């Protein structure tokens, strides 16, 4: 268990919580439930959390897998600098965001899930993890390719001389191809 980057799981949990908060909020607003204003808040909070958590961070070890189309989100999130880099900030932010969700039933689940995500982020922050953006690799990092690869080979691969390879009419048995499997009708 020692090699786990908790932030990876916290990220999945927070993204899920954002969606749950959003869904609960939509249900509350659409159904015009009592105190639906909390549901309206949950819609906004859910969208915000989803936007913040959608870009996956870069892993310390191993290959990082991007989510589809996350590059523009990465750029946005990166622009906030230390606020989004630091997981303590995220942990407290999520803890604060989730509180109003506890007031109505429709958003209670989102609140608790976001609270759990906040705790996992806290664990990640205590272990010293931080968010790094996944940026596209630069072209210059690749080794320069030798020119010779781009040209097709000028010479055929080495083979015995053509006279030896050519099948001779007087040596039919030697020229015949032997089928490993007997051909039956």
């Amino acid at each position, binding site marked *: 268990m*020692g090699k786990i980057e908790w932030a990876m*799981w916290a990220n*999945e949990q927070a993204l899920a919580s954002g969606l749950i908060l959003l869904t609960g909020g939509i249900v509350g607003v659409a159904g015009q439930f009592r105190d639906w204003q909390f549901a309206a808040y949950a819609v906004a909070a859910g969208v915000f959390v989803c936007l913040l958590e959608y870009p996956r961070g870069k892993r310390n070890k191993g290959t990082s897998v991007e989510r589809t189309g996350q590059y523009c989100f990465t750029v946005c999130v990166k622009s906030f600098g230390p606020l989004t880099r630091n997981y303590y900030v995220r942990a407290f932010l999520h803890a604060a965001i989730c509180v109003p969700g506890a007031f109505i039933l429709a958003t209670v689940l989102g609140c608790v899930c976001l609270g759990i995500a906040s705790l996992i982020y806290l664990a990640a922050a205590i272990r010293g993890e931080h968010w790094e953006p996944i940026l596209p690799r630069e072209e210059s990092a690749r080794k320069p390719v030798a020119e010779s690869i781009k040209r097709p080979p000028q010479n055929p691969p080495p083979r015995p001389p053509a006279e030896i390879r050519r099948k001779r009419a007087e040596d039919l048995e030697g020229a015949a191809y032997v089928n490993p499997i007997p051909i039956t009708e």
Partner: protein
Amino acid sequence: MFPGSWCLILGTFLPYQTWWSRVFKCQSERINIVVWMAINIFLFVWFYFLYDVGERFVYTRHILGSALSWARAPAAVLNFNCMLILLPVCRNLLSLIRGSFMCCGRTIRKQLDKNLKFHKLVAYMIALMTVVHIIAHLVNAERYYDSRQGDYDELSTILSKLGDTPNSSYLNPIRSTSTTPTLLVFTSIAGLTGVVITLALILMITSSMEVIRRSYFEVFWFTHHLFIVFFAGLVFHGAGRIVRGQIATDPPHDPEDCEDKADDWGVDVDCPIPEFAGGFPQTWMWVIGPMIIYVCERLLRFFRCLQTVRYRKIVIRPSKVLELQLMRNGFKMDVGQYIFLNCPAISQLEWHPFTMTSAPEEDFFSVHIRSVGDWTQKLISIVEQLPEGSQGPKLSVDGPFGTASEDVFDYEVAMLVGAGIGVTPFASILKSIWYKFKESNPKLHTRKIYFYWLCRETHAFEWFADLLQVLEREMEERGLGDFLTYKLFLTGWDQSQGDTCNGSCR
């Protein structure tokens, strides 16, 4: 996290045909999925209409509307899928079924190998139905609350007040005007268990995402044991009997006649006060069977743990590969199968799968273990420090599992293509073919094998290259050099290796 899973549930985002044929490749798999889906749809529609037109629920529907049916239909689908979800992960049970179906064709048995795929599919369905179920119940809770507050029509208010007087039954689970929907959820069995099991489900799902599973398996494995909480809560979820329907009274109360005379209930002879009761909890009837089967499965794994496994030989191969030749009483294997190994000295709870590299004709079974992660590195370092010829650390073996690759023996010419780690079962297959050939086993029809092996570089699989060379030598000695033709393709070859070879390599 979501693109793959969305594609599965909402296949309309991709061209349907290509998604379907990509995910479910073979005919029998598609048939299984279609049958499963048909049962789900049937259950959904059946229970939807049971609650939507059923006479017992006329008054319940008056307060709740169609949200009642929208909550009960997914509940039935959830019952069915929670029953199914434990079964694909009972690997010993699957092995038993596979063994009993030896007569019935390989295609059917091969379906048992897709168990994890099916487990995931059922899990997606559980997640989807949970969403529908919860949203419908949110609406129900809100409607019960409003009805209790008197916000709806007179009939609803009267229905909600039923049960206020002693010795009468209630319809509306909100018993007082000061109870909010949130309070209802947290003070009722159904609500509390519902929140707990949903939380367990969410934690299980987020830790099962591919990113987490592939990189931090322990987080996935330990969090997944929340299924115990899930099933415990699920069994008690209906115990509060919160969904209430009308029961027979004497004289009978017919909603059709008495709906409009709510003020006269109890006074009018034909319309006594209606009585209500909750339905008998049914979920336990669906899930008790698989729960018992799963407990048996875990007990079996535990007893397998206790069986002694002896080391026949331990060989440390180049590139940090460890070959273990093991023996266990009553162990029978087929080509291409795999086992799970557990080493209490390293970790009590971890079981790791390894494909077997020995042939069934040998009196031992062997695995080749490459040093890739924590567990394998520790195993290799423990073994390296052992004195020569001594027994290794205590091991437990579970298995063998997997559909055997026996078809290969039926064909005169076999073409085997292996890539990377996939070459491991071929060690078993090639050895078995060679043994059968030497013994002139009549079951073996193979006369010629073409073996194609693709890997980045041979370092990781030098042990297999050694095996090929041994086989080649034995064949040459018997004058059967043509039996096996193998070709290696090194995909990690690049210009720098060409430079170091200086033109003298191929």
